[in-house]
């Protein structure tokens, strides 16, 4: 199920403003890749180009190659909508659909796409996805209640369940714990460790301890100054980045000298 993604020479623009420049990296299947760096360095922007969510913002575009298992996701015949079914995403703030119940939220990817699904299959998919997101036991008795009635951490896991119900190959997480309390954060981190058996995961985080805890590989983004584009400084095994990075900037950042 998991896929490898090769990014080469990616430039990301907002209108004519170059936001992120010249990123090349390989994201290995069945690993957790963490992206760290100071605010505004373009890590979230980069993450959003991996499922072409970036271009939802008017005027935003990307140049370069993002290849998933041999297919260039920015090829001219590629439908960005279809890309997003292969590459799921979890956002900074939990965003369950307020008009839908918990079960409907999980099925949203299926139902919103007008796909037919038998009742039994739907029930299975709901249970399996919620179990996959470690939420089943907490909500199995109230599947028809509104999703917005859950706690923040539960809502975020509901969003993860919703994302994996579409059966993506890759799961992108944009600071998924930044709006959560420590206990909910722990639950999500445990979940990430389990999910990596089945998915390629890319997570953007502000929290270096989190990156060290959950990821196998870590990429460090930095920005030279306001108005300058963000760049990928280096990417390596997490243990290497946090013990003996090659670049001085990385070391300065992780040792807390700036950012």
């Amino acid at each position, binding site marked *: *199920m998991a*896929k490898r993604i090769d990014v080469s020479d990616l430039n990301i623009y907002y209108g004519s403003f170059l936001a992120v420049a010249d990123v090349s990296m390989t994201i290995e299947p069945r690993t957790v890749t963490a992206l760290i760096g100071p605010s505004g360095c373009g890590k979230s922007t980069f993450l959003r180009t991996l499922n072409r969510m970036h271009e939802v913002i008017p005027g935003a575009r990307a140049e370069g190659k993002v290849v*998933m*298992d*041999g*297919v260039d*996701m920015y090829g001219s*015949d*590629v*439908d960005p*909508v*279809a*890309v997003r*079914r*292969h590459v799921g995403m979890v956002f900074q703030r939990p965003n369950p659909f307020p008009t839908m119940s918990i079960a409907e939220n999980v099925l949203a990817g*299926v139902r919103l*796409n007008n*796909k037919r*699904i038998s009742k039994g*299959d739907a029930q*299975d*998919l709901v249970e*399996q996805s919620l179990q996959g997101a470690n939420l089943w036991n907490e909500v199995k008795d109230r599947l028809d209640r509104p999703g917005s009635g859950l706690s923040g951490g539960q809502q975020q896991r509901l969003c993860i369940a919703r994302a994996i119900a*579409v*059966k993506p190959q890759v799961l992108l997480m944009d600071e998924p714990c930044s709006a959560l309390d420590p206990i909910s954060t722990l639950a999500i981190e445990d979940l990430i460790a389990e999910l990596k058996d*089945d998915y390629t995961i890319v997570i953007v985080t502000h929290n270096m301890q989190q990156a060290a805890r959950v990821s196998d590989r870590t990429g460090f983004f930095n920005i030279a100054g306001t108005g300058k584009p963000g760049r990928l400084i280096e990417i390596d095994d997490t243990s290497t980045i946090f013990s003996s990075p090659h670049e001085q900037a990385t070391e300065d950042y992780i040792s807390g000298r700036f950012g």
Partner: protein
Amino acid sequence: MSTTPTRRPEGAEPSLTPAESMTHGRASLANRAFARLSTASGVTILALLAAVTVFLVLEAMPAVTTSPAELAERISWFPEAGGILGYVGPLVFGTLLAAVLALLIGTPLAIGIALFISHYAPRRLAQGLGYLVDLLAAIPSVVYGLWGSLVLAPRIVPVQDFLAQYLGWIPLFDGPAAHPARTVFTVGVVLAVMILPIITAVCREVFLQTPRLHEEAALALGATRLEVIRTAVLPFARSGIISAAMLGLGRALGETMAVLMILSPGFAYSFALLQAGQHQTIAANIANQFPEANTYGVSTLIATGLVLFVITLAVNMLARWIVSRRAEFSGAN
């Protein structure tokens, strides 16, 4: 993508390769169709407005191209002299007079009401009080007409008499005041009531947008409530008030029924507000003559309607322009 809940076995190829499943499909066709449809609706609005203009111009043409003498011959109520401009002139005058009068009465009142709701009334009551004023907008204009002519007109007679007696030296209040009060003065009062809700609503919104910092700064310096309003609220709201008044003016210019039912019409350039049979507005005149008019009459009336259209358009555009300029400069949305 398969939607069945069974997971793919380890290592097996997916049923569809990404290359196949990520290319454009039926969905993107529907996507584009929907985008086109909604864009077309936007264009429809522009087309509609253009159509309104074009059709009115087309229908008004005969009245402009036919000679005044022939018009006067074919239309019973068309003046012998002056032609189409001579006919429209007093109507435009009457329309502006009634609307401006309504504005002069309505705007100060509306500002007071808006201030009361935004700054004086207890917070808990404010919304309910605002709703009461909005109720004035829910009353149909024909009911205002009924009320204005059967209830207000008899009761306003003493006011008119008073004005004519003591302020008669001002041309505006030149007597004798008409009995019953089927005058432009009564019309102005009723129109003022009718435009009160819109002006109040806009003013209220603008007053509530006053930066809290300004207000609190003034309060912290020991200003009274009046001084807060004079120093922080009103300067901030000035252009908002102006555009609110313009919107009200736009409404008053186009109001038909209240004028038609209250005013005793006449075609003079007269400032005598208290005299009947002196004024008529474009809208009321159209409603009055249209049902019985022949082809030439209809064309003439549509020509006058076009004039009204242009006037209200100009007033509204000016109002919107002031609003948008204000939004750009103050950062308030």
